[in-house]
């Protein structure tokens, strides 16, 4: 044993004479710092998954365990029995898909017009649109609440689709599409006009097929925006089977209203991990989509 340790440290010494020890130490410190900073970013995910597999008693036990003593997979069954979580999950999914497709449609049309068509009133209208870009939803939620209740759309998914499409997310998307279409040279479209295409034909046949990357970014941002919404479902939806995931997550509690953490963590894991997996696979595209909203267009 002692000889092993000895020989090991010996080798280390040899290595340190090759590399200047300062550089070696710097590198260790560098990675140690970056890993240390990572802890608050990563630990919540680990603790979430760990908690989702514990029993109610183990979850409060001290000293804490990262890897549960017994894996309680039943948590993942019970969340579906406690409330209609499958239905709620489906709600979130289909709402996000409808929101995404709607935003892609209205934002590419509007973005194209603002970029390529010179028409009366365009500047004024665009300026108006920009005023809504950063406005918090809390500003308009009260009148929208009354509008929806007058239209008998309370406790339905219609507001959860309409408000994001025509709110700040739709405006951001319009802006992204406008920036992209502005980068397409006019010559490309002129060829289409020579061939007798209408304005819509030029947009549909020429400009839109070129806009794949911008549309993908819009799709990613819109989907995540809708998937993550909390205020709107909270205000507009009241029936359990109409809930969306963010609303449902907070709804696993016992008879005293105290959270059932093991179920909450299981449900949260199911909500977070698929998104996280897609993110890890496509992280370059996803990160770039977010970067576009800040810098380029």
């Amino acid at each position, binding site marked *: 044993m002692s000889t092993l340790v000895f020989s090991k440290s010996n080798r280390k010494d040899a290595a340190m004479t090759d590399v200047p020890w300062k550089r070696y130490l710097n590198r260790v410190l560098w990675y140690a710092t970056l890993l240390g900073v990572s802890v608050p970013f990563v630990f919540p995910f680990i603790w979430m998954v760990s908690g989702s597999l514990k029993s109610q008693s183990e979850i409060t036990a001290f000293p804490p365990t990262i890897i549960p003593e017994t894996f309680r997979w039943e948590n993942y069954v019970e969340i579906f029995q406690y409330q209609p979580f499958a239905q709620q999950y489906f709600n979130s999914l289909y709402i996000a898909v409808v929101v995404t497709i709607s935003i892609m449609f209205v934002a590419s049309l509007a973005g194209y017009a603002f970029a390529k068509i010179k028409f009366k009133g365009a500047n004024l209208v665009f300026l108006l649109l920009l005023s809504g870009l950063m406005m918090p939803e809390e500003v308009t939620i009260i009148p929208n609440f009354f509008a929806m209740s007058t239209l008998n759309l309370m406790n339905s998914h219609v507001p959860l689709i309409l408000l994001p499409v025509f709110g700040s997310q739709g405006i951001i998307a319009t802006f992204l599409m406008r920036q992209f279409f502005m980068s397409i040279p006019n010559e490309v479209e002129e060829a289409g006009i020579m061939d007798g295409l209408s304005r819509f034909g030029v947009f549909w046949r020429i400009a839109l097929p070129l806009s794949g990357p911008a549309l993908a970014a819009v799709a990613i941002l819109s989907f995540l925006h809708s998937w993550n919404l909390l205020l709107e479902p909270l205000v507009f939806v009241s029936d359990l089977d109409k809930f969306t995931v963010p609303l449902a997550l907070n709804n696993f509690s016992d008879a005293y209203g105290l959270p059932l953490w093991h179920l909450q963590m299981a449900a949260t894991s199911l909500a977070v991990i698929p998104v996280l997996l897609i*993110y890890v696979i496509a992280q370059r595209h996803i990160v770039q989509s977010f970067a576009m909203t800040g810098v380029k267009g």
Partner: protein
Amino acid sequence: MLSVVLKTFGDLMSALVSQKKNLFSGETLSGWLFISPMMFGFLCFFIIPVIAIFGYSVTEWNILSQDSTFVGLQNYQEIFTENEEFWLVVRNSLVFAGGLVPLNIALALVLALALNQKFTGVVFFRTVYFAPVITAGAAWAIVWSFLLQKESGGVNQLLALIGIDGPNWLREPNWAMFAVIMTRVIKNVGLNMILYLAALQSISPDYVEASSLDGATPWQRFRHIIWPLLAPTTLVISIVTVVGSLKVFDHIYLMTGGGPESGTLVLAYYIYERAFEFFEIGYASALAVILFVLTLVLTVGQWLLKQKEQ
């Protein structure tokens, strides 16, 4: 994007003022047709509601009683002079923004500078620091509520292992504010980091090289070359982060409910609480008007600041 927004804002303003008549009138119809779906929705769900909150804000209106009466500026008077809660909300919002914005920007910059180096694993760390950004705010807030409980919370359990008796994070006023700020910074710092990273990568290496030849230390290089070149990005990030801090809702609703002792009651959550828990529509609308004006002033103010700089 915001820098482009600000620039466009300026261009449009000057175009409107000078009234250039270089428009092809023949395309006006198709232009309006193209924008009509977006603009119709925007009119219905944004413009009209904004006008409506100004109207609501001068009424006394309780959802339950179903009737509203005109009361002039009484709601505003109540907010500013009679109700001490509002000033607590203002204080909390300022503390929240004052803590979150500098922390977020400083950390984002440091992380971006670190990840702008070339080393093995840079993509891994970028992926890690950005992961909370794509995570649902509700999920993030719930997991942190779980982590920050007094007895069985992960954070206090880890602290106990090294002999520290952690506070009841979310039930003591000052700690609750601190906890909400920190969890929110970790949630969103990745976005600003990416924006800084993009800006850093667009800085020409020639600048940095030239300064190295002049014998500048890394700090001098940062202070006199990199930091000034990042100024436009810093401005954009500041606007987005300040306005973003006004919007904080998920974290407050799920982690503290505005408590303890209203210690984390901030403006956006206060509007929700007044409107949808106490059903005081007139009062809540007056608060929404204040939020609207505040957001507009911040956006336009920082835009003017930028114009002055140029």
